[in-house]
């Protein structure tokens, strides 16, 4: 393996956990998330010439993954209506455990957020990215990112309090 290939491989390997987490937050399907990550790795490897040195490599990868996801979504919309109806029993089997109930409440709250708000919130909180970096990834103004994060925060907190969620 050449030195540049080895360095790129290592950089990609280090990014995989974050890419998987971000892919799951977008797709909400573990298998699809891993497919997204795989496509992202291939595209990043083949498009390395498009990466601007000195910019954030991880943010570049996230942008590719996000583009893959929304491109796939467009194709899907032209094919068949896709709707998931998950059975509560899959994840509340130990509903007597208070911690688990509380935890599930948080992720249910995440699940009702619009994707653009959820991705902004996850990138800022979990990935600890700046609003500017998220704006670059999402291709929107920083103010829009802040608006999305603020709305997501308000909705999620309202959900956790048991009140109506605002937009």
């Amino acid at each position, binding site marked *: 393996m*050449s030195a540049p*290939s*080895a360095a*790129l*491989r290592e950089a990609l*390997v280090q990014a*995989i*956990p*974050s890419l998987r*987490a971000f892919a*799951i*937050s977008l797709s909400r*399907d573990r298998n699809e998330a891993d497919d997204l990550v795989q496509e992202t*790795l*291939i*595209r990043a*490897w083949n*498009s390395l010439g*498009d990466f601007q040195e000195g910019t954030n490599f991880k943010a570049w990868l996230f*942008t*590719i993954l*996000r*583009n*893959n996801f*929304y*491109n796939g*979504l467009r194709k*899907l919309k032209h094919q068949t*209506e896709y709707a998931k*109806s998950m059975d*509560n029993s*899959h*994840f509340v089997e130990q509903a007597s*455990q208070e911690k*688990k109930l*509380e*935890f599930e409440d*948080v*992720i*249910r709250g*995440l*699940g*009702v957020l*619009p*994707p*653009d708000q959820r991705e902004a*919130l996850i990138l800022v*909180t*979990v990935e600890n990215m700046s609003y500017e970096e998220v704006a670059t990834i999402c*291709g*929107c103004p920083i*103010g829009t990112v*802040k608006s999305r994060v603020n*709305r997501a*925060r308000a909705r*999620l*907190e309202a959900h*956790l*309090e048991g009140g109506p969620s605002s*937009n």
Partner: protein
Amino acid sequence: MFGSLYSSRQATANGKFPCNASTLVLCLGYSRGRGEMSDEREKPAGSPKANAGKPQTVGASAHNDAVPEDVVTPIDGEIDLARLAPQLRGLYQELLNEPIPDRFTKLLDELARKETGKQ
């Protein structure tokens, strides 16, 4: 309200929530199907190759947003995420700590082999 709410929702002593990554996926997928994604107003993108690493814009939130988000009142100052951020990091921590599946390392090895073969 928030004090008791959040104090009772903290991660366990080891910083992890009593849930695995699969549960996270299930719960995130619970409420809405993909047909409800908020990109209703998106325009078709160009060539994926040409767009690699360049962000695509997504329309304002569906979910009955009454006001387009781009014209909402600007957010001045920092958004207080002190309560939510630890919880969300806890949710994803287990996923971030999972071993990297072999399929990815094998894929990268294969890409590297092909790259070496070209040279």
